[in-house]
């Protein structure tokens, strides 16, 4: 032990501590410390305890993950309890199963009919889409006016009225699906409208 400066009068305390240590060690040496320790270690089992600790640490996380997974599966099953027909659109399949749905009759419809028969709750969206189509048509027209006739580039294909109506009606069919689903879950409805407006 290093030589060190100790406060005056500390020697008495040091002596007391030395006496305590000597007496305690005497008893300690007579005892069977190692044998007792060995018995305790044997009780724990060779390498068994750490594995139990690992399991205890992981168990809550695993249980939580399992419950989340199970809840997710249940929710998905509840929403899509029947698988879509092969090659079919999931919305179309769902809408066909809903009573009162007339089907996709846009082949027989004119733009005027669509505006007359439209769902008022979807008015803002369809109005917006019509505006969009009008704007696109104007842009297309102006572009074709400006484009030189023999520039060598491939001309942009123009959509026929039928094609445009097809796109518009598909969008409306999707929204009707969400509208029907609205009764079950208002949050989904809000989300779908917001999402569609964002896309538009």
């Amino acid at each position, binding site marked *: 032990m290093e030589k060190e400066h100790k*406060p005056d009068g500390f020697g008495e*305390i040091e002596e*007391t501590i030395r006496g305590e240590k000597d007496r305690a060690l005497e*008893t300690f040496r007579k005892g069977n410390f190692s044998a007792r*320790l060995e018995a305790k*270690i044997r009780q724990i089992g060779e390498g068994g305890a750490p594995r139990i600790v690992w399991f205890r640490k992981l168990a809550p996380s695993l249980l939580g993950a399992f419950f989340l997974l199970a809840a997710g599966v249940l929710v998905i099953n509840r929403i899509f309890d029947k698988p879509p027909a092969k090659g079919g659109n999931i919305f179309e399949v769902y809408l066909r199963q809903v009573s009162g749905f007339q089907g996709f009759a846009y082949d027989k419809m004119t733009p005027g009919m669509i505006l007359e028969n439209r769902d008022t709750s979807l008015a803002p969206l369809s109005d917006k889409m019509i505006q969009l189509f009008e704007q696109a048509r104007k842009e297309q027209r102006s572009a074709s006016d400006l484009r030189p006739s023999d520039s060598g580039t491939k001309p942009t294909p123009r959509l026929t009225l039928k094609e445009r109506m097809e796109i518009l009606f598909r969008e409306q069919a999707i929204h009707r699906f969400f509208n029907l689903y609205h009764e079950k879950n208002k949050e989904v409805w809000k989300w779908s409208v917001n999402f569609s407006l964002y896309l538009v």
Partner: protein
Amino acid sequence: MGVMVAEQGADRKDIFGDLLTHREQVFRICLGFAKNPQDAEELAQEAYLKAYKHRDSIKAPFSAKGWLLRIARNTCLDHQKKFLHIRPLSLEEAGEPADDCDIETRRARNEKLEMVKDAVEQLPRKLKEAFVLREYGELTYEEMSAALGTSLGTIMSRLNRARRAVMNLVKEASDGKRA
């Protein structure tokens, strides 16, 4: 690969066996924190069990002793926190082994020892661990520095303050008894 793992396992066992050679030092440290030798032995057992459970975390054999002493110190401090509300047995209550001293001498000695132990217990945690590791564990400054993770200067300063504080507390207690 299997042979290497088996060799590593055997090494760990050897290291743990080597650690058992420090059992008296571990016991002395525990004695510094405990109120009587019986509690100190229990604490030493607990420290060795912890060391056994975590023996895989021994990085190098040369640092194993410091690691063990740190475990012993932490075990004692945890124990003190847990059982703070329980009054420990005094030396007489714990049944100190009889020696060749007469009853009067033994009583005076125990009284003095109780005063010292009370004084150590009253020390702030950092001063207490420095005092116990040096006075009971008989660790060198370097070993203390490694065990406490502080510089030598800090260790020496803490030790000096702890010794003075113990002296003052013992003096106060002794004066109080006389009065």
